[in-house]
């Protein structure tokens, strides 16, 4: 299958790279773009499109007042979750992230209906309507949230990795966090323990260039975030997060390292969020042109579509897929609108597990 062609991108120059080590320590191998089969390309495309359409719909429902509070959309970043999680073993590897979590759940195959119903605060929601957009979990899918405190998922994810190692179950934890979160102290506390104890974890910085309104340059003394693990001897990789094959390829190199018991890897995925930080974002910190330029030049879905077209997939096929995805999303929205709210007695359930 086609390798990812070099292309102009607003974000990174290289698709993926392991920086030259400052010493002779062993490093993960240099990642290469993933050599996907046509079926895999289509699968990536479907998943990314599902996330995009789902998020667009969530935006609409928010505008209609059906979704309340904070709602952080993943539009623009789809290739990250899809590329990385496609490389994981869903039976044993665990995933944890922050509040911008819808995409990671969809990429892990969780039913869009129960996610959307959680966004609308219904009893059928994955957290029975008690978590909301930022707090969703699926123990069944080894998806551990869904956390509203910036950076918390990094220590918690390190704990998931600890549990994998303790049990010797061969699992790897993947902990996603933002460029803004990468300035939290607990991230470095976790880096230290993870490397010290060689825990099976991949730390993923989704560098979408902004933490709310603060750009990376305004918040980070070292803005090459893949280097943030260096003083803990954690190898870093910088990856084009707008190219799903580059992402998948880098994930394979990282997983090889981690599964071999060599400890954590830090991946920086250069990406971009098209929408506001949450639904209530004045968007004064960047220009419309900047956003438009990324959409035009680097959009992950368009990029993949082009690869597939080059590989001979016709427009009809894309139309079919689009129709199918729209139907799934419409169904989940209908479900989320019509499902009943939780019973009032649910207010008092699930506070504690046991009776005292």
């Amino acid at each position: 299958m086609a390798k990812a062609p070099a292309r102009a991108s607003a974000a990174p120059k290289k698709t993926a790279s392991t920086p030259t080590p400052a010493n002779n320590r062993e490093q993960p191998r240099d990642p290469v773009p993933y050599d996907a089969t046509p079926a895999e390309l289509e699968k990536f495309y479907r998943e990314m499109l599902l996330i995009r359409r789902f998020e667009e719909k969530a935006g609409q429902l928010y505008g209609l007042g059906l979704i309340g509070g904070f709602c952080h959309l993943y539009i623009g970043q789809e290739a990250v979750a899809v590329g990385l999680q496609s490389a994981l073993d869903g039976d044993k590897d665990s995933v944890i992230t922050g509040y911008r979590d819808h995409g990671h759940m969809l990429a892990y195959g969780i039913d869009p209906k129960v996610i959307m119903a959680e966004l609308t605060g219904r009893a059928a929601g994955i957290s029975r309507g008690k978590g909301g957009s930022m707090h969703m979990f699926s123990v069944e899918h080894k998806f551990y949230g869904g956390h509203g405190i910036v950076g918390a998922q990094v220590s918690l994810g390190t704990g998931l990795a600890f549990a994998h190692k303790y049990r010797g179950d061969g699992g790897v934890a993947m902990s996603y966090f933002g460029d803004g979160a990468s300035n939290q102290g607990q991230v470095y506390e976790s880096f230290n323990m993870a490397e010290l104890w060689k825990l099976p974890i991949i730390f993923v910085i989704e560098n979408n260039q902004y933490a709310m309104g603060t750009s990376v340059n305004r918040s980070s003394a070292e803005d090459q975030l893949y280097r943030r693990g260096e003083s803990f001897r954690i190898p870093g990789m910088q990856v084009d997060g707008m190219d799903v094959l580059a992402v998948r390829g880098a994930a394979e190199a990282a997983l090889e390292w981690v599964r071999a018991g060599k400890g954590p890897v830090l991946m920086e995925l250069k990406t971009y969020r098209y929408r506001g930080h949450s639904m209530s974002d004045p968007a004064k910190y960047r220009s419309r042109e900047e956003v438009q330029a990324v959409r035009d030049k680097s959009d992950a879905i368009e990029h993949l579509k082009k690869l597939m077209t080059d590989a001979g997939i016709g427009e009809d096929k894309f139309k079919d897929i689009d129709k199918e995805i729209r139907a799934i999303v419409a169904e989940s929205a209908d479900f989320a609108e019509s499902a009943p709210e939780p019973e009032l007695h649910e207010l008092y359930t699930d506070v504690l597990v046991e009776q005292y």
Partner: protein
Amino acid sequence: MAIELKMPALSPTMEEGTLAKWLVKEGDTVKSGDILAEIETDKATMEFEAIDEGTIGQILIAEGTDNVKVGTVIATITGEGEDAAPTPAPAPTAEAPKADAPKDEAPRKAESGTEQLIVKAKAAVADPAIPEGTAMVRLTVREALRDAMAEEMRADDRVFVMGEEVAEYQGAYKVTQGLLDEFGARRVIDTPITEYGFAGLGTGAAMGGLRPVIEFMTFNFAMQAIDHIVNSAAKTNYMSGGQMRCPIVFRGPNGAASRVGAQHSQNYAPWYASVPGLIVIAPYDAADAKGLLKAAIRTEDPVVFLENELLYGRSFDVPDLPDHVLPIGQARIMRPGKDVTVVSYSIGVGLALEAAEQLAGEGIDAEVIDLRTLRPLDTATVLASLKKTNHLVVVEEGWPTCSIASELAMVAMEHGFDDLDAPVTRVCNEDVPLPYAANLEKAALVDVQRVVAAVKAVRNRG
């Protein structure tokens, strides 16, 4: 003239120790910095160094001697050119006055207000949760806690202990002594000084299916980690609609310790007890420490388990049962009485019991309740007692504002108003950061006399 070497105080609370081993013998010449002996306290084994140069004259306390009081002359050193020949040995007691020792050289043990917190009082009645006729063993609170962890670790491979100095050092307060030897480094894990990080790691490991026991060297340092205790551990089950369990125990010493100043002396019980989703336990005696820690490790809910350093070395009777587990959420009547209800928890229970003794001599029959669990609070036991005595006094080694005492006063207002013959009274620490100076520390902390006075005052109101 011979210099007397005296049993040193090696920690603020040390009153006596074991002279474990002499590393010199009579006639040896020593210089400053040479290690003379190993001394064991309840917390650790320490080396005792020479400060002066000279020759060891006499060794007055043989190695292996237990309970050597601080200040006891244990050996003599003669200076250069002096006669090192043994002189008749003086009686090796700390009390024996040394005529030749200038007064101001006598070691003066730093006083502490925490001494007023340490009383000998014990429950007057047996815990109904323990079968009648059960044999008892004497254990310190420290040993009881260690045994609880060891038993649970033997029974369940998912249980592990993690924290600063819990493994090789055997615990900053020796609570985890011996666990590394028995269970190895996979299950007894020394962490870097990284409270926020390891509290989060532990919480994640609990979410991932393990049963972590996370030790904070003291709860003062858990302030760095309170985010994970409250936001990650306590709320996740609710936020996930009951899917994500977090069976974790956060444990360590809480409350005032001796002369360590404000940053190391705080009672966090009311903080954690205010959080839905947490279980908060604060035991007084060794039997409860053991039975409740085992229950805490077993429950599916996250537990904050508040110990007290000043109680670690106290010995109590502990049921000699293969599996002594107590119910969470049940207070215990420590002494039945009919005139006034005195409620407390943790170290305050001792003060309440001691005060009840004194009050009995003055014809006031106080009922003493140990809450044991602070969340969920056993209000039924407190209210039933109030119904009987019509007077309620709360004793709490902690600040008065927004305290467990405040909470109990509200409980009495809401559910026991008609039973009250006088306003609820509280005996708490003064509302200031804990001072260092011995006299101020004494003034700041609760004591038995304050409890006695409060009970009398409340009785005089009706």
